[in-house]
């Protein structure tokens, strides 16, 4: 028997167009009709856990040879990303991809350039076990921490079961989640403060929308919520040359031909701070990145003037880091 009222409603709405229902799904307010949403000003964080996580984040004991910490590649004076195109892991080994920003991860749908992890917890194992990044694993880390300073006491104070693998991960994740950059000028503008942006920046935003950038870079993180092929309208990798395995992107996980060169669309929050750009760190400056995106993703050639306006808009996405 057909018991549910929502299934009736499903039939009704399918029969009759979705407008009324769909618009109710969007938030009310000034930003309702924009493809980009502002970051929430606060999210619930367990600050005791986050504090422990912060300590772990900068602790080189988390690497196999005690040489690097998470903070070695995610710099807080560089938008939470690394300075160079590639990062150095244990024993000075060079990583395969450009280190992305550590900020606003709570709003991303997958992690790593190829989207290998669906949650932050899942993600933690990836850099730890990667032989050119941290080259260790959590059981080893827990062992190390048990004999390191007052970690056992601190964990016991915060976690019921004390210092365990789960507790270490929880603390790190809580810290990662706490790193948000709300209230950038663009968010203020979205929330209704029309003076937060100047005319040129507003024009840049309109250009950003009308050129089609918001086909992928949308939502609260202006990206970070879908996969896309790098080189939709042109063959980026052939043009760049020297193709590596990391360039295959999601294909390395799924072995599905459709996923070759497919990457997680990164968030554009704080993008002005995080040069160089792309998974290969190949674009040294933001105008370069915009130019490549326009040509390979959108199939358009845009003028220098247009690029400079878009860059002006993108610079308004730099927010202030809220540390726990």
């Amino acid at each position, binding site marked *: *028997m*057909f*018991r*549910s*009222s*929502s*299934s*009736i*409603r*499903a*039939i*009704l*709405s*399918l*029969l*009759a*167009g*979705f*407008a*009324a*229902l*769909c*618009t*109710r*799904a*969007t938030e009310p307010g000034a930003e309702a*009709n*924009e*493809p*980009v*949403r502002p970051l929430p000003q606060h999210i619930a964080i367990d600050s005791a856990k986050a504090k422990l996580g912060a300590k772990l984040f900068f602790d080189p004991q988390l690497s196999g040879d005690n040489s690097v910490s998470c903070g070695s590649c995610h710099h807080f004076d560089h938008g939470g990303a690394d300075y160079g195109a590639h990062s150095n892991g244990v024993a000075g080994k060079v990583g395969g991809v450009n280190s992305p920003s550590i900020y606003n991860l709570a709003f991303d*749908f997958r992690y790593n350039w190829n989207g290998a992890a669906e949650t932050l917890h899942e993600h933690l194992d990836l850099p730890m076990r990667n032989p050119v990044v941290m080259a260790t694993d959590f059981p080893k880390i827990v062992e190390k921490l048990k004999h390191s300073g007052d970690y056992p006491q601190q964990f016991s104070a915060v976690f019921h079961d004390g210092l365990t693998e789960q507790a270490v991960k929880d603390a790190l994740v809580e810290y990662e989640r706490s790193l948000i950059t709300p209230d950038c000028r663009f968010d203020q503008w979205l929330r209704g403060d029309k003076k937060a942006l100047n005319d040129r920046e507003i024009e840049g935003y309109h250009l950003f929308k*009308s*050129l*089609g950038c*918001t*086909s*992928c870079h*949308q*939502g*609260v993180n202006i990206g970070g*919520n*879908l*996969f*896309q*092929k790098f080189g*939709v*309208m042109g063959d980026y990798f052939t043009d760049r040359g020297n193709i590596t395995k990391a360039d295959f992107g999601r294909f390395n996980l799924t072995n599905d031909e*459709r996923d070759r060169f*497919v990457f997680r669309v990164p968030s554009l929050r704080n993008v002005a701070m995080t040069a160089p750009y792309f998974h290969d760190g190949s674009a040294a400056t933001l105008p370069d990145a915009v130019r490549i995106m326009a040509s390979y*993703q*959108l*199939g*358009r050639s845009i003028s220098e003037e247009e690029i400079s306006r878009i860059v002006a808009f993108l610079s308004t996405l730099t927010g202030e880091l809220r540390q726990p």
Partner: protein
Amino acid sequence: MKRGTWFWLVAGFLILGLCGYLLPRAWLNLADHNAYQQLLRDARQLDHEINEAVLSARLGLLLHYDPLVEKTAALKRTHAALANTPSYMLVPGRQTLTDHLKQAEGLRARKAVLIEQFKTDFAVLRNSLAYFPKLVTDISHRFSTRDDGGEVIPLLNRILEDALVYHHTASPENESRLRSGLEALQGHLAAVGDRTDAADLQLVLAHANVILQRKPIVEALLGELVNMPTSPIYDAMQMRLDSEYAGAQSRAQGQRLVVYVLSMLMLIGVFSLIIRQFTHSDRALRVAEKKFRSIFEKAGEGIFQTTPDGQYLEANPALARFYGYGSVSELIQQITDIRGQLYVDPKRRDAFRRQLEKDGHVFSFESEIRRKDGSIAWISENAHAVRDSASKLLYYEGIVADITQRKNADYDRERRNQRELLHQRCLLGLAQFDKTDFKKALCEILDTTAYTLGVNRVTAWRLFDAGTPEESIKAIGTFDLDRREHRSDEYHFHSRDFPNYFAAIRRETCIAAPDAVTDPRMSEFAECYLQPLGVASTLDVPIWAQGHLAGVFTIERTGARHEWEDDEVDFALSAANLVAVCFETAERVLAQKEAARERERAEQLLLNILPGTIARRLQAGEGLIADSFAEATVLFADIVNFTELSAGIPPQAVVSLLNKIFSAFDQLAEDFGLEKIKTIGDAYMVVGGVPAPRGDHVEAVAEMALRMLDRCAELTRDARVPVNMRIGINTGPVVAGVIGIKKFIYDLWGDTVNLASRMESHGVSGHIQVTTAVYERLRGKYTFVDRGLIDIKGRGQQTVFLLKGPCTETATTTV
């Protein structure tokens, strides 16, 4: 005491202990059940919302993917939580639910994959679709200055149109049309040498190919996504949960009864032993009897002993109370025929006796009985037959439990299910109703709602001046069930007078007010509306159309207070949704009419400046019209010495005079079926044979020229200075077409046109000068004067003629 006594006592305590163990297990954990049910509802709702989000993204109503991401993640979490089945379930039920959940989870995982593909492919498609019109326009513009523009621009426009049509309806015909256009462009690309142009055209090909490839992918993904059979699985889970719950309920009931019977039997046994132990002592016997009595009398359930022929031997106060008698003795005295007096259906007593005869006992024997005051109740009896040592039946002994409430609940559930089914049928019927006839559809919704829910009045209200201080709702249709009629009452309420209500309809999806007069959201209407109309309970559902509050759908009951049930609320929500659809459809129809009017107006405007056939072609989407005509006759007329003429009279008078003359010429052109092309200052240009070819275009133009001279003379007879015309005519091939995007003008080009103009400029005041081509065509029909060879600027020597008039019967040419 004897050992037997101890044995019975120990056994009794063991049984009591067992009861203590069994009872809590049998107890149903309602919170557990409700939480699970809520999770099921959430899952179904999320699944539904995901579909909605995908569809609204596809329709461009949702501009970002966040809701999709959030809801897919939430559905995954909900499924994980659903793995913990409620504790009261038995193994088979648990297994079934787990199997269903596994199925649902499989679909969810598949859906998540499809959604990822959808997001990726749709982003690309959306980009190309948005860019394509601009791209084509830009490139057309660039090509308009090139030699091959005439060839490429129509092709580009065709591809644009085909691509948009294909996006709208991805049929195989539309696909092959688009493909053939692209092939033609590909062919042309080979011919384009210039590098920048080639890159432009390649871009068009690339974006068109994106549309061609991704459109079917996106549509297929969408189709698979929304058609996933998820809700039948949730339905099956819900049904299984319901039946498990009902089973657990009756199990609990049964267990409780068994435990009770056991404990009663044990207590009776223990005390009868004690009594037997103390038979030698009257005092002891009295004490024991008193104790037994007190148990008997204080028991919550009814206890009875009845004779086989239907009289009470013994009953406890609980039974008397339950049957509605003041005392046990009253019960025993008044009921002398249990079969006829107590049982609503006397056959139940027969069945009761038959079963006791056969098995010696009955358990959970459920019957309807009549209380003293005539009210009906449901009982469940557990009884056994008591026989003497010779197996002769002495009496029946048993206990009675009141199960009226449970029975009513069963009945209610049954009734509600039936009602829900009926509601669904009505709604489906309504949903199929034609919503373009707004009035009729609204009436249908109103009276179906009233009849289905059995409510006194159903009204649809429309919101006016939303968001302004003048905001109000007005009744646009009411169905009154008491009078069985549709009414249009003049109720009109302003938001400033009813602030709480207007806030509530913005805030809540539904205002169910069993006590409308005291409900804070409704009480503002108490004096002006509810009390005068005798309304007790109201159910108001805001109508949202296209994201805006558009009105309210209200349901009212008069008389006694009515607690609105979930299924009624659901029905109201769905009906209000239908009204919203009606609103939207009505608006769309209005907009269509408005657009049609607008189109007509534009058409009229176009007709004023363009020939009708050309205007229609432009409207049909032909961006550039350039037709060549093998033969046409072109006439130029000019007012001689217009500059000097205009110097002598005021400007207004000049314009007025010109207007008079040219209007007369316009009339002549229309009379002769010729096409006026334009006026340039004081010059007038007209053509014959374009855009509709005709055989007699030379004759028609000649006639017009002659009449023009006459009309001009007539009109300027009163002028202070004589006004003379100079007319030139030529015939030959021309190209005619429309150029420009904003200011359309139908114009002629070609050598024929230039020469016609020269005929005029090199002509003689007050005369019509024509070329040899014209003369050849008209020779024999008109009279001419040969002007001989004259020097035409840029043409050299040409023989020209002056057209004098038609040949009379006898006249011959005066060449």
